[in-house]
């Protein structure tokens, strides 16, 4: 496709020698610039643009297993959208996705930040401990999910046996419609702590020592130092952590599938599991695309806020 816009090397060589025309040279320079941009643009169009547009189009089509044979997917207007929004499950999944995302982010961030501040001080074995805390990050999500499913088992799970030592009765972690979402959030917090800690720890290491020295000379308390120096200076890093955390949390699928499969009674169904269920269990690809689009839209809105926040910060 680019062969039509970019002339062959031989043509450039011979014509350039014949007439050193400034206008032509400029045009050629623009061409070269486009040449450098082209691979990136092509890549984006192919791997991001195309699937996105395809997904939007698909949400307006009656896209069924037959489509794979005939290649025909008749447009059905807003039918898919009406069907998805008309089903009570969508609202439930949306609300649960919001709860899951907010809960996970708060938990991961607060504990991650506390640990980062803690490890920012030098003490014996600090490095080893910090490395150990990274472990959850190294375990594949599905493995974590399966292990936690055993730990959280109501009757034979380790957690309930442990809590039993303190006289706390058997908690139905994954088997009660009221507790299951909380349990999934807790597991996700456990998984997300290392990521938050590492990035925040890196940020803390970059902060100028002098400011802290000045603060201690002025007799500022530890809390005051944290609130007035650490937090404001760390703000750019915090934004990055929260945005990346949001992106990976809102689309959660693997963890929920491994832990509860969306159950019991859809109480841990999120938009991620819903689009999976629509597309790959019910084979209603149009409906699945609708939910997928909503997810993309949520991320896009968030991305706009993020970019705007960054711009004001840059000024």
């Amino acid at each position: 496709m680019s062969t039509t816009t970019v002339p062959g090397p031989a043509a450039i060589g011979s014509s350039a020698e014949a007439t050193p025309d400034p206008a032509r040279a400029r045009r050629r320079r623009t061409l070269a610039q486009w040449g450098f941009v082209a691979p990136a643009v092509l890549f984006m169009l192919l791997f991001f643009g195309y699937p996105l547009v395809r997904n939007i189009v698909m949400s307006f089509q009656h896209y069924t297993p037959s489509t794979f044979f005939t290649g025909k997917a008749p447009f059905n207007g807003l039918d898919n959208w009406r069907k998805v929004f008309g089903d009570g499950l969508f609202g439930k999944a949306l609300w649960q996705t919001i709860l899951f995302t907010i809960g996970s982010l708060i938990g991961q961030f607060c504990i991650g930040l506390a640990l980062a501040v803690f490890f920012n001080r030098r003490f014996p074995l600090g490095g080893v401990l910090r490395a150990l805390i990274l472990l959850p990050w190294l375990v594949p999500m599905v493995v974590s999910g399966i292990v936690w499913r055993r730990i959280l088992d109501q009757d034979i799970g380790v957690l309930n046996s442990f809590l039993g030592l303190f006289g706390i009765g058997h908690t139905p972690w994954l088997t009660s419609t009221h507790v299951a979402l909380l349990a999934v959030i807790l597991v996700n917090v456990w998984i997300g702590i290392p990521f938050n800690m590492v990035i925040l720890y890196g940020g803390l290491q970059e902060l100028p020592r002098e400011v802290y020295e000045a603060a201690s000379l002025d007799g500022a308390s530890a809390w005051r130092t944290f609130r007035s120096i650490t937090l404001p200076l760390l703000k750019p890093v915090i934004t990055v952590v929260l945005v990346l955390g949001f992106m990976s949390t809102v689309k959660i699928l693997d963890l929920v599938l491994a832990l509860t499969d969306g159950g019991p009674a859809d109480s841990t169904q999120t938009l991620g599991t819903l689009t999976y269920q629509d597309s790959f269990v019910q084979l209603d690809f149009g409906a699945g695309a609708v939910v997928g689009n909503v997810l993309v839209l949520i991320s896009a809105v968030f991305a706009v806020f993020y970019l705007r926040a960054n711009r004001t910060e840059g000024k």
Partner: protein
Amino acid sequence: MRAHPPNGPWPGRRRVRRPALVALTVASAVVGSTALTGCGQSRDPGVYTVLNSSTDDSYHSWDAATLERCGKRLGVTVRQQSVPADQVMTKSLRMASSKSLPDIIQFDGSEMPAFAETGGLMDLRRLGVDTTDVPQGILDYGSYKGTYYGAARTVNTLALFYNKDVLGKAGVKVPTTWEEMREAARKLTRGHRYGIALSAGGAEDGVYQFTPFMWSNGGDETDLAGRQVIQALDYWKSLLSDGSLSKSTINWTQADVNDQFMAGNAAMMINGPWQVETLNTKKSLHWGIARIPVPRAGDDSVGPLGGGELTIPDIGDTTREKTSAKIVNCLTSEQEEVTYALNSWMIPANRKAAAVWRKKVPSLSSLADQVAVARSRTAKVGSGWTSISLALQSAFQSALTGQSSASALKHAQARVESGK
């Protein structure tokens, strides 16, 4: 290019630019062309492929041996490609859109109708697949809208497994009715051991386990809010409220149920014969098998039919498809069915093969009885089964976590109807 004298307006830049342009052009062309090709493949006339879900080591090697024997007999090479069971459908659809379908696909019986509905499967009878000695129930299981698309080698169903030692020690007889089972489960619950284990998980496993209770009571998947279905769900609830069934049941797959039974955490369980291989690895466990209890003495115990079906997708090459049919005939021959059934602890589909098998494993004969009257999940509703299954999962999970059976099932029925 190197020979070109650097005498232009921007000599330095130009030297960089030209090779770079060449590279970019080539790169773009390569990206573009790989994106467009990659679809379609020509088939090797002597090599046939079977797509199945035999990812498990032992199943994979059993199938490999069978396919090799059949290939040798027919003078072709038969290869198997195995993907996890829940991916057979999506994988096949992707292969269909890229015109690279395998010659034979082994679908789960509950999935076949969805694929058959696309018109992508061949009528097996017309291709010459032999159906003599296949019982009517199993023919129906492999049919969609009257056409026979899927040939089962072996089938399975569910049964009641019980721990002989535990029942013997407690002096409890093997239950045959719901009331007896409830009573037995209550008596057998001791300490960390529950009377019974079953899967009410939020996936096909749970629905599969619910069907014998629903059907034996006269309930039907076309009317989830019907009285008999509500009674069946209430029966499950009663086991839970008696404390004879763990609350974790709603989070268990059938494999989890088997684990619980083997670990001694349950005295009885509802499960299928495919677990026998694992059960037998524990020598100290003495288990027995019986029909799933029925609501009232004298009722028929109706279980679900399960198991893979060999289908031949439409690849637009009749000669090749006819050879595939011969491969299917070989795989479903009496000899091969018995071998496969003995390996996998399932029941041969062919009547003659089943008779041979019964003599070899008399301990599982109650399963063979159950299979003879078992029912296909998709016979009535065809490809609509998936939405019914999803609604039903949600319903029994709601009911087992507190909601009333009637309102949960009414909601499920409404969901199925609105989805149409």
